[in-house]
């Protein structure tokens, strides 16, 4: 009705807004259309759209929360893992150090045993050499004595004549008679 009224007014009076170049009728028509569209959208489209958007928003929000939680869990796991790794590294270092010390102890003990054994062997060898030396010296002395005696025998056998032998016997008798 208003529309009709307006159309009529315009037709009757081209002055006022039309003088400015604006089409009031059109404008009002468009406005009405817009309002109607708005109402329709508001009544049937917007709620669904908003609901859908809201759902999507909620999903997104949930996803974000989950992602945040996952990230937190991941960070926690990572920190736990790094802590475990650190502890394991420390234990490994300690075990390595311990093994190193034990190895050094074993090596030094083996060295000491080897030194002691070599010293003992050296002493035994020295003792054996000493004994062998004594034995050889004794042998040499015996052989020398034997040689001297044999030589003396040979010399006396050749040199001692009857006269000297008689003198020797008489001298022995005198000695025994004393």
């Amino acid at each position: 009705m208003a529309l009709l009224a307006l159309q009529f007014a315009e037709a009757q009076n081209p002055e006022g807004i039309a003088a400015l170049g604006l089409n009031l009728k059109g404008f009002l028509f468009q406005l009405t259309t817009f309002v109607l569209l708005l109402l329709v959208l508001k009544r049937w489209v917007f709620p669904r759209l908003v609901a859908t958007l809201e759902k999507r928003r909620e999903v997104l929000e949930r996803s974000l929360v989950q992602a945040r939680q996952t990230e937190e869990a991941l960070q926690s796991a990572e920190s736990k893992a790094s802590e475990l790794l650190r502890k394991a590294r420390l234990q490994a270092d300690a075990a390595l150090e311990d093994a190193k010390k034990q190895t050094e102890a074993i090596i030094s003990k083996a060295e000491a045993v080897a030194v002691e054994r070599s010293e003992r062997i050296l002493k035994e060898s020295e003792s054996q050499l000493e004994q062998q030396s004594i034995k050889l010296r004794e042998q040499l002395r015996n052989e020398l004595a034997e040689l001297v005696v044999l030589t003396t025998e040979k010399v006396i056998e050749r040199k001692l004549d009857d006269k000297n032998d008689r003198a020797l016997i008489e001298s022995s008798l005198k000695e025994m008679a004393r």
Partner: protein
Amino acid sequence: MSKLSRRQLAIYAATQLLNGQPMKAVAQDLSAALVESGKQNEMELLISDVAWELENRGIVAQATITTATPISESLRHHLDKFIKQAAGVDNVVTKEQIDRSVLGGVRIETTSHLWDKTISRKLADIREVF
């Protein structure tokens, strides 16, 4: 008789000889004793025992004189004198033997004495010392 020892037989023989029993009779007694006891192989030992007994009693000494060269009469006389004095006997029966291995000097052996003044003995002593 068969239970008598060699020593007892020797004492018996020495006593009989000193008492003037003839040697032949004493020898027969000793032979019988040996045969009866089955000790004929101990004859030499018995003779040594009798000699020892006689020497021990100062009657007679049986001496073996060993030298490298033959000894003269005067030296023999000196040796007899020495043996009588040293062994304490009235008589000496000597047996001489030459042994070049003694080299020089003299060795006198009786049943109970030994005097060794040979050069071989001295060399053996030197060997011992070394």
